[in-house]
């Protein structure tokens, strides 16, 4: 038998190294930074016991107690920039050290827009497959045109219908997966303005979750590779790699599951994140890789992606 193949016609998917859980120990906004190092120390003090709980939990779950837990910290550099990495990063490390907490990875939020030339946000936006309300028969106007994503059917708008037709009464929206009553959520994913597209905070947070779950690929390659850092950090945020490995002994950045310890003020954002994540189509081959790896380790992962994402709200 003869075979003929052309490289450009084939498809290959890299697999990601995975920890058991990726714990987000904090998220730094401009406001937080302005409150100073003490504020950070307080925050880490609150997080430390929860991190211990997660470690203990995973040690009990995996054979031999060899739990791979990696920690990460996200700096918001999208919605207003402040200070410099050279100043901020050591301050964060110090505040963590003071609480006996090790931050393995540090990421900047702008990496969720695009990292190393890969348009991650666009990549995720293209993979949204909206949950169809009953009686969706085929094509319908999609998120890609409106920039909004809901968990159900919106309240119908009075249409610009034909003349001499009566107006419509108000009708309630409804959640697709409702249990008796609806909790209708409608999330703005982006806004197109004169300076191009501005991604919303929940959308970028969804990209962040997918990155931590190791589920994104760009042309089959892993999009963001953590870069090891020394002790010196640049004076410009743009020169800081998207994800920096602060701890040389850290287990992989991505993990089977994620846990985020957050202030309750992020509750709404995370509800939006779950609305988005439950409508993202992840490459089945990538999902299969994760499934196989976890089966090899005799772990049972939740079937639904959103169930692999958990939180502690403080």
């Amino acid at each position: 038998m003869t075979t003929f193949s052309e490289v450009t016609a084939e498809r290959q998917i890299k697999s990601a190294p995975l920890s058991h859980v990726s714990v987000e120990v904090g998220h730094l906004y401009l406001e937080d930074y302005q409150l100073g190092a003490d504020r950070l120390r307080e925050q880490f003090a609150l997080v430390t016991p929860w991190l211990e709980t997660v470690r203990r939990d995973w040690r009990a779950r995996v054979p031999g107690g060899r739990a791979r837990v990696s920690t990460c910290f996200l700096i918001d550099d999208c919605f207003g920039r402040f200070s410099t990495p050279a100043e901020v990063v050591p301050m964060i490390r110090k505040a963590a050290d003071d609480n006996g907490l090790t931050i393995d990875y540090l990421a900047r939020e702008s990496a969720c827009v695009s990292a190393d030339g890969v348009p991650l946000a666009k990549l995720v936006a293209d993979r949204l497959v909206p949950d169809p309300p009953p009686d969706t028969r085929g094509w319908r106007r999609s998120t890609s045109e409106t920039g909004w994503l809901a968990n159900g059917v919106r309240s119908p708008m009075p249409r610009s219908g034909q003349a001499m037709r009566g107006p419509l009464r108000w009708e309630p929206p409804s959640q697709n997966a409702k249990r008796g009553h609806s909790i209708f959520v409608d999330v703005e994913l982006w806004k197109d303005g004169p300076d191009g597209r501005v991604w919303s905070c929940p959308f970028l947070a969804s990209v962040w979750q997918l990155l931590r779950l190791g589920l994104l690929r760009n042309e089959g390659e892993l999009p963001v590779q953590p870069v090891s850092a020394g002790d010196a950090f640049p004076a410009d945020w743009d020169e800081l790699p998207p994800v920096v490995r602060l701890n040389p002994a850290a287990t992989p950045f991505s993990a089977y599951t994620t846990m985020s310890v957050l202030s309750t003020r992020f509750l709404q954002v995370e509800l939006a994140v779950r609305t988005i994540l439950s409508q993202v189509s992840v490459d089945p081959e990538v999902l299969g890789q994760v499934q196989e790896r976890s089966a090899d380790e005799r772990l049972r992962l939740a079937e639904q992606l959103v169930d692999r994402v958990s939180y502690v709200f403080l």
Partner: protein
Amino acid sequence: MLVFAISDKGGTGRSVTSSNIVYRRALQGQDVCYLDFDFGSPTVGAIFRVSGAARGTLKGGLHRYLEGEIAEPTRIDVWVESDRDALRSKPPGAGQMVLFPGDEGGAEFPTFEGEMVERCVRLFAKLQEQFDLVMVDLSAGRSHAALLALAATARLPKIPCRWLVFHRWTRQHILAADGLVTGTHGLLDAGEAHGHHRALLADRIRFVRTAVLDPGAAELDGLRDTQKTWLSEFDRELRELASRHGVGRTSMLGKVPLDPVLQWREQLITDEDVQGTMIANVETVVAFDELAKKIVDDAAWEGL
């Protein structure tokens, strides 16, 4: 190519003339289609004598398509579905002739939103792929149909499009036709507001005179001399008026003589009507045939 048929006043002969142009173009071997965008009174099926669409269709026409209720509007193959024998078989070498009716009971749209423009854009683009000539019969006057057409064509700069303004040969009609194009909220104003380049759009507009009585025509032999003189003088005055208002010869694509058959009935004039039963005038058919050629003849559309 997209061609929009519009007139300021109702009853100018817009539908009858544009239908006949489409028919002639099909006989000339081109694939043509006719879209009934006269949303307030979808009746164009009657001219083609398609009984299922005489007052619009019940199977989902342009109204329901534009409102997003159906994925594709109903199309009617005139060569197959017309009730008129003379139309029911496609002559060899003739092109397709397809009708897109409105919905029976459909009405004018009081306004239109972005999604409707989007659907209109998709429809025009798809028809351009299939037909050499896409004739769109718009409602009379400053209508939402016309605005929709302007908005959609502004988003399809790569597709050639032309506008025909129909008017009768009277003082009122000449002034009205000019007003429809250059007046406030006229085609040029509205076109500019929707993203057209004013001068380029103006280059794509031509006038068509309908039901014109030629003072020298043989039928007028029975008139008294005083009547003939008056007609000639008034005709000259109208010509002057027309050229003062930019509706004159240079911006005119053609004129259709008054025809006894069309006076009585809205229909397509077949060669049988002229050569067989001889009820219609040969000049009328010649005028339609000329218009059908001029619509696509770039020389007739060079900048003024």
